[in-house]
């Protein structure tokens, strides 16, 4: 194993079967499709970047799709998420319109943020995605505020706060988790431990075997799961969401996963080996889930292939739509600085 995260309990075969049974075929197929859409979206975004149609940078989550889709699966439509700079999967899993999302990547007026935010700041406020964030751990204190707002409004909505392993070493993490705990807020903290900040590895930057161990420092439950196993992620986050919704106890869930691509477009992968990357590719979360659905006879292999193909086709259509959208008009440049 190339990870130094202490081994965690894999999902038992019995539990895997129970979970599969508890979810409808439609939901299971939708989850597989959302993972494929994320993969296809990011591959397309990468292609458009290479063609110079997308500028700036982007942070791809290829290899991490189960963490995003599995975490968001137990949420209700009206629940909220707050995302990260590596947030395309969160956005898609929460139900974003791929056309508007792609238009945002291309900086177009019809994009989610009118082309003002781009990949790193994409938000779908009406859809409950309160935004990706260009600052590591930037979303964590805000998630506490959202939780506070939800509590004061006496709703039973919850929020998932996504962040990475690097963010767990920011001071913001400490202040926010403590506040969520002492105020009994309906927040689920999902740490996507992909084992690298930019180049700083989990192995070098932590002296604890698991990030979820930090939960005990705030008096809240913590759990580490296989972040490349959609059902394991779903199982842990589902429990955490119930706890947040019904008991107002926050949870720290750690999804151990791996990003196949570099941190951003400038990354030459000098800090890890090709072998390590190849090893993790054999744990592809999408293939694993698709194979399981076929094995469990939820879908046929033809259906699995159909889901993959339709996801790629949908992304092609989204890109075509986005390219046809207008650029923001220059006279609107200062709109939206103030309300």
């Amino acid at each position, binding site marked *: 194993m190339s990870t130094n995260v202490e081994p965690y309990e894999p999902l038992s075969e019995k539990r895997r079967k129970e979970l599969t049974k508890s979810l409808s075929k439609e939901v299971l197929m939708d989850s597989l499709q959302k993972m494929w859409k994320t993969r296809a979206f990011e591959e397309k975004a990468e292609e458009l970047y290479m063609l110079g149609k997308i500028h700036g940078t982007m942070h791809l989550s290829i290899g991490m799709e189960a963490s995003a889709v599995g975490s968001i699966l137990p949420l209700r439509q009206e629940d909220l998420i*707050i995302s990260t700079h590596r947030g395309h999967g969160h956005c898609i899993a929460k139900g974003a319109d791929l056309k508007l999302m792609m238009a945002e990547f291309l900086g177009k007026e019809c994009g989610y943020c009118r082309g003002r935010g781009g990949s790193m700041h994409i938000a779908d406020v009406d859809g409950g995605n309160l935004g990706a964030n260009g600052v590591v751990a*930037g979303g964590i*204190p805000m998630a506490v505020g959202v939780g506070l*707002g939800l509590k004061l*409004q006496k709703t039973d909505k919850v929020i998932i706060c996504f962040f990475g392993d690097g963010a767990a070493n920011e001071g*913001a993490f400490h202040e*926010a988790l403590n*506040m969520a705990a002492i105020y009994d807020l309906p927040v689920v903290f999902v740490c996507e431990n992909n084992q690298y900040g930019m180049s700083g590895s989990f192995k070098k930057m932590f002296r604890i075997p698991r990030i979820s161990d930090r939960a005990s420092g705030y008096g809240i439950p913590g759990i580490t799961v296989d972040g490349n196993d959609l059902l394991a992620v779903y199982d842990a986050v589902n429990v955490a969401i119930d706890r947040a919704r019904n008991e107002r106890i926050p949870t720290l869930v750690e999804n151990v996963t791996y990003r196949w691509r570099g941190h951003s477009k400038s990354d030459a992968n000098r800090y890890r080996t090709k072998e390590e990357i190849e090893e993790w590719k054999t744990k592809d979360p999408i293939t694993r889930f698709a194979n399981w659905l076929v094995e469990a006879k939820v879908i046929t292999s033809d259906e699995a292939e159909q889901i993959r193909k339709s996801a790629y086709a949908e992304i092609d259509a989204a890109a075509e739509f986005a390219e046809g959208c207008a650029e923001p008009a220059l006279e609107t440049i200062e709109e*939206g600085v103030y*309300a």
Partner: protein
Amino acid sequence: MSGREITYLEAIREALRQEMQRDERVFLIGEDIGVYGGAFGVTLGLMQEFGEDRVIDSPISELGIAGAITGAALTGMRPVGEIMFMDFITLASEQLVNQAAKIRFMFGGKATVPLVMRAPMGSGTGAAEQHSQSLENWFVHVPGIKVVAPSTPAEAKGLLIESIRDDNPVLFLEGKLLYKTKGEVPEEPYTIPLGKADIKRDGRDLTIITYSIMVKRALEAADQLAQEGIDVEVIDLRTLKPLDKETIIASVKKTGKVLILHEAAKTGGFGGELAGVISESEAFDYLDAPIVRLAGRDMPIPYNRTLEYHTVPQVENIVETARKLARREV
């Protein structure tokens, strides 16, 4: 006017209380603001009146407070945060500068962040280097935030109510030495628009442009100068952003001489911006003398009483500088 006199501090408390009574979305969060009543006593009694859910004692987590009000504002609440001393806003600025100020624009105008962060600023209490700063210009420099700095009890109340009702992040800066000053304050709730300066004293010889504690000192200086036959106009900006350029320009065109006055360190302070605004306006042609800035020395606020006193402008410094300017001796 009712004729009722209360302090600046009481006026701020009254604004908070009346807005909390009017709008259940308004809540307060900060360090020791509950039973303790806040380090300066601004929120004293409010927890007893509104409960622990609406007057929330926070851990000593300034970044957490800033995040809490930003996130809560995103859910439609109207939170008012308190930073105990403005110096500690350094610890909260990531959420204010990178998140609260940017969200609306960054999300294409599709989110609103109606929050207020209150903070006391300034020296004169012997609290020395880390509890005496005036850092307002850092935030003036961040598009997306409004910056308010009232000088009287009545304006503190009206501007705070307006700030709470405003749909943008507002940094509300309270003059520490003003807390105990008294003035007439109407009992009923009222608002004063942001971005509107107030001419505190009409004059024809020179214009002093200032805000917060320095308004009080400028008015005292103006009274002394009047005895020498120098007629000073004092403009209280009240809000630094948005800035009431119109009032500034009109006054400079009238007097032809400008003294810009603030407590914050001179270099990189708001005075430079004001000088710039005047220089690029039509008022430039009306200037009879160079624009003069009188501001805090470029140094930390020292502990020693005498040294502290001489670090920032006092009435006698204002009198002297204004006199020279009026006589065209600069």
